[in-house]
């Protein structure tokens, strides 16, 4: 049980995927202008990361490892993710059109979200078992959503600030992200034993 709690706390706070691992920065900067779309993106990413992690883990353990094809990891994983995103889009459109309406716009962006591929590879590198992999995947996505959501709140305020022209938009957003990352550094060194 403790390992799972440790994985969750570590993935959300201590090694937050955006602030300390630098993964998923593109959507982090792109879709964080409004809190509502930030939550939508977060939900879509959580969905894809969780499924992709499971599929990638199964493929690695039962196909790539026994056949000695570990070197195909990158290419197989990215194809799995691209395929999953496509499939998800089609399935959602047919079965839950309401959800598709709200999440659909974010789906194509997810294929090139390096957080998804990053988590799939990290799970293999860390040598997790299936349950740990799922936990790690979900916790990381929660960390991602949290970062996106906090940051969107800040950016909504930033819009109203009088700023030098050159600083507007991405530069000031990056500096705020830096300050947020400092806040998240306060969690580092915490150990759950």
């Amino acid at each position, binding site marked *: 049980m403790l390992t799972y709690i440790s994985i969750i706390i570590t993935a959300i706070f201590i090694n937050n995927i955006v602030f300390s691992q*630098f993964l998923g920065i593109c959507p982090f900067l792109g879709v964080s202008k409004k809190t509502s779309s930030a939550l939508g993106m977060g939900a879509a990413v959580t969905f894809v990361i969780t499924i992709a992690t499971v599929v990638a883990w199964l493929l690695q353990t039962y196909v790539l490892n026994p056949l000695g094809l570990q070197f195909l990891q*990158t290419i197989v994983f990215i194809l799995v993710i691209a395929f999953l995103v496509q499939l998800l889009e089609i399935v959602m459109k047919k079965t839950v059109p309401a959800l598709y309406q709200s999440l659909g716009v974010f789906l194509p962006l997810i294929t090139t979200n*390096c957080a998804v591929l990053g988590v799939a590879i990290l799970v293999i590198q860390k040598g997790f078992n299936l349950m740990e992999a799922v936990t790690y995947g979900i916790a990381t996505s929660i960390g991602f959503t949290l970062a996106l959501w906090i940051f969107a709140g800040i950016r909504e305020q930033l819009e109203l600030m009088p700023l030098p022209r*050159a600083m507007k938009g991405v530069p000031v957003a990056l500096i705020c992200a830096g*300050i947020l990352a400092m806040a998240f*550094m306060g969690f580092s060194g915490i150990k759950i034993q």
Partner: protein
Amino acid sequence: MKKYYDILYNGIIPSNPVFVLLLGMCATLGTTSSAHNGMMMGIATAVVLLCSNVVISMVKSLVPDKVRIPAFIVIIASFVTMLQLAVNAWLPSLNASLGIFIPLIVVNCILLGRAEAFASKNGIFESFLDGLGTGIGFTLALILLGGVREILGTGKIFGAEIFPEDYGMLLFVLAPGAFIALGYLIAIVNKIRKTC
């Protein structure tokens, strides 16, 4: 001649992938703890970009429109895997310092972006130049960011001491410094672009 020069130059300054197009941010932030690391990541990405651009422009008419994205991804991923194997075999120290960011070149938006916007519409030589220019632009941006972080953080540049390390602001080597340094660099670039 002018046309070729423009293609090459365009990727380096007017549409620099990092400072102007704001693409490939993960690798930019994650691997620039020193000028040397930044340069290595830049070169690795540039090599893949150059190869994928050339190959994609070669096969562009053989790939039907509807499957072009998966086809491009397969091509890019193959080059990334080949790079990974080569690095493992001949430059293991690079693998240790760049770590997970080597496989993540696959999802660097610059590659798919250039494939889609340029290589799938232009000839082989033009695509080669575009890949070269964008690759150089990316590498220069990473060296600049890595250099700034290294100097401010440790007082060194490419490992050569400028001022004693004790006066360095360690923050710049750590994660928050990456965001802050990049933010100010982009602001400076914005300022320069507006004035000239």
